[in-house]
């Protein structure tokens, strides 16, 4: 029973990882850029939820669409202002641009909102879900469901809409997409917007359970990197399933073995997988 | 010197080469021709060690070499050029050639000497100090040949070295290949430019859809109805495989 409870807890947190990674892999898939500042989108999503709650008593769950929209804007604007200029730069400069953005965002958050830990207290999302002898925090369950819904929506968007197809087309072949009349610049901005929105939604969903502070993104970004590579760079479905896998391995591994080494376990699993399958679980060969 | 025996290469289920067999004698020039997608480059990559064949054998002076990595093939005396040029863009022309020369001359001064010699041989010496990225396409192709020659190969694999060259440049390339041959180096040449390959090839191997459809001296090949069909299109087509 305890083990089942543990596995399901792993799935719940894994789904949130997955959502963060879906956004990251989306950006990578379209642009071949690993966004080191992705955790900061999550942080911004958390602060957006926090301020909505603190200033207007709006529950993070209700402001979630607004948070998504806001972060979409942040992502798209970031593309327009900064990323656009490094599209064709060497991988190293891309890494360092986004690394610099990471520091910048953290600094800005501290500047404007102080380094204090914040939290949303008294959201509608408080309480527990218990069934069949298992119990989970309601916020975790809602966060996991929200993560599934958002990841699903992204997947549906990519698979079934005209714009989604255009995005995939741009990712696959920028020139061929241009020959279809698709504006690659718009698609790139769209990818950054969506990627940021995913992380922002994840932040909003976490805001009722996780402390909010300028460096909060650091906790999630390493997992997001692992998931993106584990699932296969650019594969949304891969990142999603890898998220669940990693969540379960982390929680169950920590339970059965030593929690001090749960990260080691996850990272070793990742190294093993990419060593055997360099393209990741669901990546293009 | 080199014999290719029933070489087969599959990618997934797709056979890019099937039962390809031919021989290259010492100092011979073999033309490898066929339509796009016929599997010429795959043969090439197998010979150079880039793809381990799915089945079949490659022998160099009787020794089985199929499956050896490219660096081993190079050490055994097989050098190649690339269809899409792959020069070292951050280096000068001389440095590019030095990398080749270092296969047998590790010390920098010796490599410089060897590289200069190779550059003189191919007529690129006056551009030795220029960044390789500033060469014209024709010069870049020539640089690749020079670089391969600096490895002191016994067998040189030339992949569309004449594509996109002007008449004059093609003539120069033809001359170069002849002079390479005169040094006793065998060449396998993948080429579309018939006027470039026909006059110099000792034999031609024609590939189509992964198989050898003809193998013989250029004159005979030019008149072979099967080849004409594969090259010139439908109405010349004879009943094929």
């Amino acid at each position: 029973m305890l083990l089942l409870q543990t596995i399901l807890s792993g799935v719940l947190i894994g789904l949130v990882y997955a959502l963060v990674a879906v956004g990251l892999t989306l950006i990578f898939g379209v642009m071949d850029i690993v966004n080191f500042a992705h955790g900061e989108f999550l942080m911004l999503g958390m602060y957006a939820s926090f301020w909505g709650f603190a200033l207007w008593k709006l529950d993070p769950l209700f402001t979630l669409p607004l948070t998504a929209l806001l972060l979409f804007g942040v992502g798209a604007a970031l593309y327009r202002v900064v990323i656009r200029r490094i599209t064709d730069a060497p991988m190293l400069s891309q890494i360092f641009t986004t690394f610099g953005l990471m520091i910048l965002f953290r600094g800005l958050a501290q500047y404007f909102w102080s380094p204090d830990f914040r939290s949303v207290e008294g959201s509608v999302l408080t309480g527990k879900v218990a069934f069949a002898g298992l119990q989970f925090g309601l916020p975790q369950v809602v966060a996991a469901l929200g993560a599934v819904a958002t990841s699903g929506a992204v997947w549906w968007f990519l698979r079934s809409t005209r714009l989604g197809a255009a995005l995939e087309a741009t990712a696959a072949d920028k020139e061929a997409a241009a020959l279809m009349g698709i504006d690659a610049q718009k698609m790139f901005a769209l990818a950054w917007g969506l990627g940021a929105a995913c992380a922002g939604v994840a932040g909003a969903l976490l805001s009722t359970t996780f402390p909010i502070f300028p460096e909060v993104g650091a906790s999630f970004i390493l997992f997001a990197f692992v998931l993106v590579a584990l699932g296969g760079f650019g594969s949304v479905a891969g990142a999603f399933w890898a998220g669940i896998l990693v969540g379960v391995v982390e929680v169950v591994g920590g339970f059965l073995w030593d929690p001090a080494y749960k990260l080691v376990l996850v990272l070793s699993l990742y190294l093993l997988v990419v060593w055997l399958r360099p393209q990741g679980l669901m990546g293009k060969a | 010197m080199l014999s290719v025996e029933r070489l087969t290469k599959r990618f997934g289920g797709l056979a890019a080469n099937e039962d390809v067999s031919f021989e290259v004698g010492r100092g011979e020039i073999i033309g490898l021709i066929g339509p796009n997608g016929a599997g010429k480059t795959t043969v090439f990559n197998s010979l150079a060690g880039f793809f381990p064949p799915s089945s079949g054998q490659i022998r160099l002076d009787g020794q089985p070499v199929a499956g050896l990595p490219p660096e081993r093939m190079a050490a055994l005396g097989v050098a190649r050029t690339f269809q899409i040029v792959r020069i070292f863009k951050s280096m000068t022309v001389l440095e590019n050639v030095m990398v080749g020369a270092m296969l047998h001359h590790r010390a920098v001064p010796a490599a410089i000497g060897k590289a200069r010699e190779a550059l003189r041989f191919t007529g690129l010496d006056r551009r030795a100090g220029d960044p390789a990225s500033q060469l014209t396409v024709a010069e870049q192709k020539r640089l690749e040949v020079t670089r391969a020659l600096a490895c002191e190969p016994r067998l040189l694999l030339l992949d569309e070295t004449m594509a996109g060259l002007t008449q004059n440049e093609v003539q120069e390339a033809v001359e170069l290949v002849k002079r390479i041959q005169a040094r006793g180096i065998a060449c396998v040449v993948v080429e579309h430019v018939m006027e470039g390959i026909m006059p110099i090839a000792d034999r031609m191997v024609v590939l189509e859809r992964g198989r050898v459809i003809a193998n013989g001296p250029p004159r005979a090949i030019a008149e072979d109805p099967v080849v004409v069909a594969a090259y010139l299109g439908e109405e010349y087509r004879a009943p094929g495989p």
Partner: protein
Amino acid sequence: MLQVRDLRVCHGRVPAVHDVSLSLAAGEILAVVGANGAGKSTLLRAIAGLMRAEAGTIELEGRDIGGLPAHQRVPLGLALVPEGRHLFPRLTVQRNLELGAFTRRDRGEVAASLEAALETFPILRERRAQLAGTLSGGEQQMLAIARGLMSKPRLLLLDEPSWGVAPIVVSRIFETIQAVNRTGVAILLVEQNVKRALSVAHRAAVIQTGRVVAEGTGAELLRSDLVRRAYLGM
């Protein structure tokens, strides 16, 4: 229809197309032939907007399109079917076709165009749910042409449509090209299969090292020794 004047295009610093001028009337097929790397593809890519012209003008139906990016030229009635086809291999045949109509506003009629395309290329109807990457070479070329037509172009640029296609399918492709042309679409055709290209073209231009070296009707050029020597090697 199309007027190209003194076009110059460079790869880095190296000019690949030198001062080429061409014109194409509505409903015409113009073949551009020449050796590999002679600059034919570069020419098409410049007309489609994938490469920037260093000098010269490109006019489509009297409008200067030289400054527009590629994606803005599509809605003006120009489509390029690129060399190597450049399909979206991980999308289905149907999605590929739908993407071809990305710029069209007449949503209702797109369905009709799709139906028409599947009519013209029956093999694609069978394969419409399959991923484009799994099609054979000939099928892929059919799909590429059909996708190009989905934007309802008045000018279709075809780059090496017989590339990597089994000989038995080549005739079908050229028949299709002629059929498309009969519906009133002008075609600028770049092709290595010179004989084939010249036999379907109304007019042809021979290009070598980035320059037009000969022009005439297909039949004239086919009889020309120069063309035979340079491209058939015999």
